[in-house]
């Protein structure tokens, strides 16, 4: 027993410790070695020197050739100290050499005996983080500034480091380009580079601002016009009479409300335990029903949802053409400003020497023409030059970028802000969905439902739900939420009932409602008949619910909220998205909440309930004021456990909405504030993606650790919150604070 406990604890500490050490260490700037190879060393790449960040060193089993080489080196007295370990086996080092676009693997094993000299740590070795293609290791030699001069300018110049040459632009025009190369030596250099980088960052911010505040809204307006036109076309082609969806929905809602009221009345009478709902409650119910209808009406806009006349369509087409042309012109003006900024960006670049080839990190390695633009550089660090303080600064800088930055280089670098936001939003949505649902279900099961075969079956089903593999939920979510429910929301029922049949069904619903209601009343007023009347009424309520559901599902007057976009093969809710992911996870975690809540409710002592009833409280008042507060610690614990499980779950959301790169956050500063239909990034999926799907899994490993640490921190802090809340509320309940 004790041993098992110790083992379990050790494993946990090891797990968390490993993740913490690796995750926290991911951004620590390591030193760069200049490795020089012997001329006779076998090599897989040309060149005889490179910069590398040592990853680890190990002994390896030498081949016979290796042994021969060791022997000859030793004979010549050229064997480097450390080339052979104390156990007599040769040693080798793994270097991270980056410079991926130079055509090399980012990691490289080098046997120590193949090195020409002990490694050096030149102070000018720089680690250059780029926006694309990953880091580059080299020496920043010079800053290059290009200027366009008019065509007639003489080609000679006496400015230091400047050269002029005629160039031909993309449209055949010719002009003169002056290129000034400013060497970055140790004293003047970094300052000039920093200045250039700051200017580039300012331009970048300006570009982003223009894009965000001008270009994207403009595109959205164009898209809105397109959509309006497409919608009108769709409705014109459908030739439908004015949609009756609105009155139909209203009728169904009213029927539902009547049914509910009847049911409530019936329960009150039957149980002698509820007072007539106070006026406030009734008003609240009416307000909720009313606002639902209103919301629906606003969304559906039934008053202009009718068929579109051809002349209206023509007018709309003309307006569309006019508006879109105007908007496109405005867009071109914006694009001009953007391209001016980008041209300014292109003027500044740096020459970075690489020891292996002696060449520079080019803008485009395949052509090897231009040097690396300054705007493509995120940051330049000289790890060998840094003091401890400087190192810590660089570390913090990288950590900040990791937490709040956007991803770069296919997620392998940069930040995970979008991922964090996606995860948090998903978790919040999940909470909003699962907690009320679970608590209500548990309340019903424990407080309202009779304990019989049916409730036992429900309990068994709920408990089994907890054991279903999570991937199954993913498949279900995709099939049901995205492709069925979502498609219905987008473009209405795929197959709708014939109108006559549908109205017949409405009639049937009315009749069944009436019968159910009168049965319920009979059950309430005549004690002898009550049992069968009550059962009959219950069955009929079930039939009503099914009928109402069918009426909504096959409503022939409902053509979806986003029909035009869906017709253009652009699903809104009919595809993968954060809402469906949250609902899928809610389903997955529902059992936890239900079971925890049921237990918590059962734990509230009977005597408390009785004294509440003794004070004249109704059932609901007792539940709300005594049972729920008493059960709150248990409910909270269950809810947080469920949420933390949901937050860490990856398999289902891979199906229903998580994506590798989401260009937009699922939350926004504009009206709905949350884009329920958007795909999103998620920490768990991010880890999977980085670890197994990255171009370069080895290079992404530090980021995998850091992201894992983040996820573990989030889940652990949720669990910790559960523990704290539970103990605090417990303390309050027993008075033992």
């Amino acid at each position, binding site marked *: 027993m004790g041993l098992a406990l110790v083992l379990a604890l050790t494993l946990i500490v090891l797990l968390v410790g490993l993740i913490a050490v690796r995750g926290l260490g991911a951004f620590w700037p390591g030193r760069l070695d200049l490795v020089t190879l012997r001329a006779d060393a076998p090599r897989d790449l040309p060149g005889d020197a490179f910069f590398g960040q040592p990853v680890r060193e190990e002994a390896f089993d030498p081949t016979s050739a290796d042994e021969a080489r060791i022997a000859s080196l030793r004979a010549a007295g050229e064997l480097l100290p450390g080339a052979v370990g104390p156990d007599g086996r040769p040693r080798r080092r793994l270097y991270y050499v980056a410079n991926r676009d130079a055509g090399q693997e980012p990691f490289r094993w080098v046997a120590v005996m193949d090195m020409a000299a002990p490694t050096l740590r030149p102070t000018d070795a720089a680690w250059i983080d780029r926006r694309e293609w990953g880091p580059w290791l080299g020496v920043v030699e010079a800053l290059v500034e290009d200027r366009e001069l008019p065509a007639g300018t003489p080609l000679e110049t006496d400015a230091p480091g400047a050269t002029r040459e005629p160039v031909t632009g993309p449209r055949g025009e010719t002009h003169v380009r002056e290129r000034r190369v400013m060497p970055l030596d140790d004293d003047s250099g970094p300052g000039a580079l920093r200045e250039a980088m700051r200017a580039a960052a300012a331009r970048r911010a300006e570009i982003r601002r223009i894009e965000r505040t001008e270009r994207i809204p403009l595109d959205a307006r164009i898209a809105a016009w397109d959509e309006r036109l497409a919608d009108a076309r769709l409705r014109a082609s459908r030739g439908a009479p004015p949609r009756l969806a609105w009155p139909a929905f209203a009728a169904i809602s009213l029927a539902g409300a009547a049914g509910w009221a009847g049911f409530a009345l019936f329960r009150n009478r039957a149980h002698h*335990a509820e007072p007539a709902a106070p006026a406030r409650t009734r008003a609240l119910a009416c307000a909720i029903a009313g606002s639902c209808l209103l919301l629906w009406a606003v969304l559906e806009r039934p008053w202009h949802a009718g068929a579109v006349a051809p002349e209206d369509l023509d007018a709309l087409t003309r307006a569309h053409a006019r508006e879109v042309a105007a908007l496109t012109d405005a867009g071109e003006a914006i694009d001009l400003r953007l391209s001016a900024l980008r041209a300014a960006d292109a003027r500044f670049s740096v020459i970075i020497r690489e020891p292996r080839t002696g060449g520079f990190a080019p803008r485009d390695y395949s052509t090897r023409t231009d040097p690396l633009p300054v705007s493509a550089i995120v940051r330049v660090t000289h790890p060998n030059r840094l003091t401890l303080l400087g190192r810590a600064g660089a570390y913090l800088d990288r950590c900040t970028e990791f937490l709040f930055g956007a991803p770069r280089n296919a997620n392998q670098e940069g930040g995970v802000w979008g991922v964090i936001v996606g995860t948090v939003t998903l978790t919040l949505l999940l909470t909003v969905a699962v907690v009320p649902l679970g608590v209500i279900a548990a309340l019903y099961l424990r407080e309202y439902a009779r304990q019989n075969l049916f409730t036992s079956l429900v309990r068994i089903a709920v408990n089994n739900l907890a054991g279903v593999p999570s991937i199954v939920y993913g498949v279900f979510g995709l099939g049901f939420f995205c492709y069925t429910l979502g498609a219905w929301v987008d473009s209405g029922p795929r197959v709708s009932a014939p109108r006559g049949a549908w109205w017949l069904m409405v009639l049937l619903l009315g009749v069944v409602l009436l019968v159910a209601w009168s049965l319920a009343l009979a059950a309430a007023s005549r004690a002898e008949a009550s049992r069968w009347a009550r059962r009959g009424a219950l069955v009929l309520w079930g039939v009503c619910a099914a009928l109402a559901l069918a009426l909504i599902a096959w409503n022939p007057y409902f053509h979806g909220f986003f029909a035009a976009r869906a017709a253009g093969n652009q699903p809104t809710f009919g595809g993968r998205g954060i809402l469906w992911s949250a609902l899928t996870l809610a389903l997955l975690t529902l059992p936890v909440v239900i079971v925890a809540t049921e237990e918590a409710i059962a734990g509230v002592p009977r005597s*408390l309930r009785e004294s509440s*009833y003794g004070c004249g409280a109704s059932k609901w008042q007792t539940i709300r004021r005594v049972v729920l507060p008493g059960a709150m610690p248990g409910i909270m614990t269950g809810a947080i456990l469920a949420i933390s499980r949901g937050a860490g779950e990856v398999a289902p959301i891979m199906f229903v909405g998580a994506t590798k790169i989401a260009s937009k956050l699922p939350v926004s500063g504009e009206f709905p504030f949350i884009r329920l239909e958007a795909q999103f990034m998620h920490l768990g999926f991010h880890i999977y993606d980085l670890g197994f799907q990255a171009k370069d899994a080895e290079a992404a490993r530090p980021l995998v650790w850091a992201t894992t640490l983040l996820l573990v921190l989030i889940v652990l802090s949720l669990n910790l919150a559960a523990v704290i809340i539970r103990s605090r509320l417990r303390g309050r309940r027993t008075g033992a604070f």
Partner: protein
Amino acid sequence: MTVPDAAIPPAPSPRGHVRADPGAPSSAPARRSVLDAIRAGEHVEAEVHRDARFADPVLDIRSFCLHYGPTQALFDVSLGAARNRVTAIIGPSGCGKSTLLRSVNRLNDLVDGVRITGDMLLNGSSIYDRRTDVIHLRKRLGMVFQKPNPFPMSIFENVVYPLRIDGERRRSVLLGACERALRASAIWDEVKDRLSASALRLSGGQQQRLCIARAIVADPEVLLLDEPCSALDPIATLRVEELIHEISARYTVLIVTHNMQQAMRVSDFTAFMYLGRLVEYGPTAEIFQRPHLPETEQYVTGRFG
């Protein structure tokens, strides 16, 4: 579900009646013991003193029978509680005292499988009539249980709970009622500085007085106390007894107790129950000093039970 049904008469015992003779001397050897008869399941007419037959009782229990599923817990109990008097119910444990008390505010409705016959009247209105609103009925009664059971809320919220569920929100009204109830239950001085503290941090005796305050805050017509002192120490018991004595000036109290001295000290009338039947009911002084039945005398002097 409790379904009152006047159509079913209280089942008479097949073995005939035993009529206790009020005038008989307390130790007639030929007479069969009333308690033996009850044990044998026979119907026994309760001995009700003339002074305990009220013309206008606040609470009038009439031929009340109660079944918990197959077992019957109360047999044909009839008893009236006088206005502004304390009525004690005594009897060995399991004789149905709590059941009777809980039946008054229909808490037994919450127990599955309870059936009742007979009726009770509260100030003339039926308690078990189908048209009676249970919630409203319970608001007219206050109840205190054996174990102090304050809600997990502040002292203030505990006391005003009955008003809150009535929808009262005016702070001044709540505060006034709270103070009145706490003063009446003699705990105001102890808690007036910490009304917002959790009620669970009070001592047992304080908690019980708090529960009494909660029970009287809405001015009930009858106060039901089910062994209110059995979980308390002697000093707290004394305080609660004084309290009962004080509030009986304004309220009608029905108290269940195990403790003869307590019944003697606090009550004006005493009912002796045995195995679900009322045996003797009369003014406390008579029940304890000159009971009509020898069995009652044996019980109150502690010679059995």
